[in-house]
């Protein structure tokens, strides 16, 4: 078979206006190059939408369908305001972790931007979704759209039956606990529309039965068992508050349990995204950069295309310094892109320093190293494993220690020989969800007494809880239906009662 010389391909269209045919051609070439690099992706579905539809998508956390809730309306209003006044541009793309992978292209983009977005979203993010272990574990790309449809219909049905207000209050409470609705260590079962529907009725009855069992007037033998000492329930602290409430809240109706479950499942779906921002955005940026450069080398892209592309690429991966007006923390695109570029460099042109820091990968096959890294890490571990001294020097990273008991801030480490490890460890810690968010777990339920629920906050670095705590506690009390207490455990193990919401209301009265 005769190998086609690159120069014999017809160059891609270079106008700034896009057409469907042009998008199709760009996609074809990008897909070809992506396959040459061995990117494994879900099939791609490209959808062209207007700015208004993009705002709609924003409002429903990027999903094409979602249940209705005022908070999405709030999101929409603020997006709309920002956009209308030109304070904020809309993202060029939204990509959905589903199978097929749906990438939205905005109508207003130029052809260059469409090409960039196809490479970035439809091949970069797409392959990450398909390969990364967190996404493989926590999300089910085949079923998510179906599940969202199920969720929307179910909640609409509840609204019809029990009133919009009732459902809205319940959702408010669930949303408040959304971040605490994830099993971090267990693999969640697969979602599927058919199964969900089939089993939902069954589950309702079963769950209600379970709960009743828990609160039944206690039979004699259990009392005897208990004489040995006070048992806690749950025996082990439970980190998944929504799960605990779904299974054990005494006063919830079956439909309310189902709604709690829906919020929990959706929270779980977004859980990996929160943990892989740097990796994922960096990966996608690396690939749009690499794929489009390859096409340019093959002579398919016009210079005008490259200039526009490079300009927006540079904007995206720019890291403003700490004292700039534009500084908003570490830019995940910048950090991620720099790291992936650097890993490739370590493989292809290792220095002595690299050999010393990364003996395993220095001089290795970069595609294999990439594949391994993409599949098996999240931000926290990715940084701990791969952040090289060179990247720290390039971004001039430094760590600042802020102890409220001290008058001044201390620069604890900078990008020098003595500081590399500490900066790296600190940055990795910064992306550890476990330390970013307060650690609050279910500690005990007073089964014998007033059925009160006790939560415990394990303090981290003496950080107190924020001032929204009492609001959240009210939400928990609404779900639980009885008194809820929050205790705080400091680093020395001392326990202190932080907050208590009394709730003596009974069934029919809860939900104020």
């Amino acid at each position, binding site marked *: 078979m005769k190998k086609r010389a690159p120069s014999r391909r017809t160059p891609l269209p270079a106008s700034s206006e896009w057409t469907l045919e042009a998008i*199709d051609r760009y*996609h*074809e070439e990008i*897909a070809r190059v992506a396959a040459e690099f061995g990117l494994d992706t879900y099939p*791609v*579905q490209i*959808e*062209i*939408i*207007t700015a*208004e*539809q993009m*705002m*709609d998508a924003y409002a*429903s956390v990027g999903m094409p369908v979602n249940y209705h809730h*005022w*908070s999405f*309306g709030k999101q*929409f*209003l603020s997006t*709309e305001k920002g956009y209308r006044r030109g304070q904020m541009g809309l993202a060029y793309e939204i990509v959905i972790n589903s199978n097929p992978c749906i990438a939205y292209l905005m109508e207003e983009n130029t052809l260059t931007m469409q090409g960039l977005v196809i490479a970035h979203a439809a091949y970069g993010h797409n392959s990450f979704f398909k390969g990364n272990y967190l996404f493989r574990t926590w999300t089910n790309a085949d079923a998510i759209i179906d599940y969202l449809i199920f969720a929307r219909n179910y909640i609409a049905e509840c609204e019809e039956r029990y009133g919009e207000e009732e459902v809205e209050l319940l959702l408010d409470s669930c*949303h408040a606990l*959304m*971040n605490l609705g994830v099993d971090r260590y267990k693999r969640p079962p697969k979602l599927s529309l058919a199964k969900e529907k089939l089993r939902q009725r069954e589950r309702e009855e079963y769950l209600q039965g379970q709960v009743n069992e828990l609160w039944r007037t206690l039979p004699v033998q259990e009392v005897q068992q208990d004489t040995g000492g006070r048992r806690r329930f749950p025996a082990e602290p439970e980190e998944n508050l929504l799960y605990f409430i779904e299974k054990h809240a005494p006063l919830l109706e079956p439909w309310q349990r189902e709604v709690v479950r829906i919020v929990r499942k959706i929270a779980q779906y977004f859980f990996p995204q929160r943990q892989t921002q740097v990796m994922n955005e960096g990966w996608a940026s690396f690939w749009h950069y690499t794929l489009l450069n390859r096409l340019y080398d093959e002579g398919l892209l016009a210079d005008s295309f490259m200039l526009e592309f490079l300009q927006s690429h540079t904007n995206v991966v720019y*890291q*403003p310094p*700490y*004292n700039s007006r534009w*500084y*908003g923390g*570490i*830019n995940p695109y910048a950090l991620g892109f720099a790291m992936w570029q650097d890993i490739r460099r370590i493989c292809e042109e290792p220095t002595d320093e690299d050999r010393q820091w990364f003996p395993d990968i220095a001089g290795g096959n970069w595609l294999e190293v990439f594949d391994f890294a993409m599949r098996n890490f999240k931000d926290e571990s990715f940084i701990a494993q791969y952040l090289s001294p060179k990247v720290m020097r390039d971004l001039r*990273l*430094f760590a600042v*220690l*802020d102890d*409220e008991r001290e008058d*001044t*801030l*201390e*620069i604890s*480490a*900078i990008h020098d020989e003595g*500081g590399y490890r500490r900066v790296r460890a*600190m940055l990795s*810690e910064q992306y550890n969800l476990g330390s970013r*968010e*307060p650690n*609050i777990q279910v500690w005990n339920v007073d089964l014998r007494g007033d059925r009160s629920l006790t939560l415990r906050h394990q303090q*981290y*670095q*003496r*950080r107190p*809880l*924020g*001032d*929204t*705590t009492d609001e*959240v506690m009210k*939400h928990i009390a609404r779900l639980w239906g009885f008194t809820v207490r929050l205790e705080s455990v400091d680093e020395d193990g001392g326990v202190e009662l932080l907050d208590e919401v009394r709730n003596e209301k009974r069934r029919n009265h809860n939900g104020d």
Partner: protein
Amino acid sequence: MVRIIDRRFDSKNKSAVNRQRFMRRFRHQIRRAVSEAIQGRSIRDLDNGEQVSIPARDLSEPHFQHGRGGVREQVYAGNDQFSSGDHVRRPLEGGGGSGQGKASNEGEHEDDFVFQLSREEFLDLFFDDLALPNLVRTQLARITDYKTRRAGFTADGTPANINIVRSMRGALGRRLALGAPWAARLREVQRELEKLIAAEGEDGEGVQALREEITRLRARIEGIPFIDSFDLRYNNRVKVPIPSTSAVMFCVMDVSGSMDEEKKSIAKRFFMLLYLFLTRSYEHIDVVFIRHHTVAKEVDEDEFFHSRESGGTVVSSALNLMHEVIMDRYGGGQWNIYGAQASDGDNWDNDSPVCRQVLDGHILPWCQHFAYIEITPGEPQNLWREYERLLGSHRNFAMQRIETPADIYPVFRELFKKTLV
């Protein structure tokens, strides 16, 4: 394999429901913000959208999060001056002059949540739980108004509606079609006849026979009816119900010496508000301005508000003029008539009973609603007392007293409070 789907023409406003939910949930806060906004802006541009801000606290979605304090070690980018072990003052960021710096990641900004209400949403809130008086009745009555409209042609109808051109054209077509075979034969026979005559002369054999056939064919063709009932076409007219969407609003104002600028401006706002309210229900609104002192005059808007007169007051002159205008231009039940009268209550004593009679007998029966506002800080005057006697017998009459511009809005609501009809 790629699928490219063009969704641009799919339904927009997927978030409309969420937006409505948001509005419903924060109705109270939004309404409060709207009332404040109304006080702040001129009545003239009431008819625009409004930027509304509600305290972000009210609509926060709380989560457990870390508060300030404790130990925190953070990594920053772009080191330009520090080495390890340096001590620096708080805050680290915000070197860019202003010194305020962005709050750290955990600290939520306590800013207001600001968003744009559309014009419709703004006015809906503004007019919330107001209803056009007696509107229900008018709406029910509306359906009886029909308008006939042309709708092509039909094959049956009344003789008065015959469309002659169409009918004749049809008849001609029919005659041509029915006569076609004979006409063709006729032409053929004529050609044969000419040939025969040319060859054999007038007396040739068969000429006679051909002539006879021609005569026969002509008779046949002529035997086709010139016009048939089948040909008749009638103009078709259909009845379309038309909503009666025209209203006329009478603004009656006292411009005598006792009405100072401030009182006039209050009156003006009242008229504006009423006008705006009517635009919600009617497509087309005429406004008639009648000003009066001792004599009444119909004027244009500018003159109405801006010219000054002096002298006494005879209110009935204005009411009589209004009655005349109604009879003259807005009679016949096609118009929804609204009246709004503003005065400081001063009137020539003997005139007040006359005013009541005119209203009672000549104006109120025609009006959907008539509102009287008396702009005075003092005791009610005789006109007020006379008008009070109308309240019992006319449901479409309302009156209120206003002292300051701040009273307008509540009064307005009071005047047009939802009434069950």
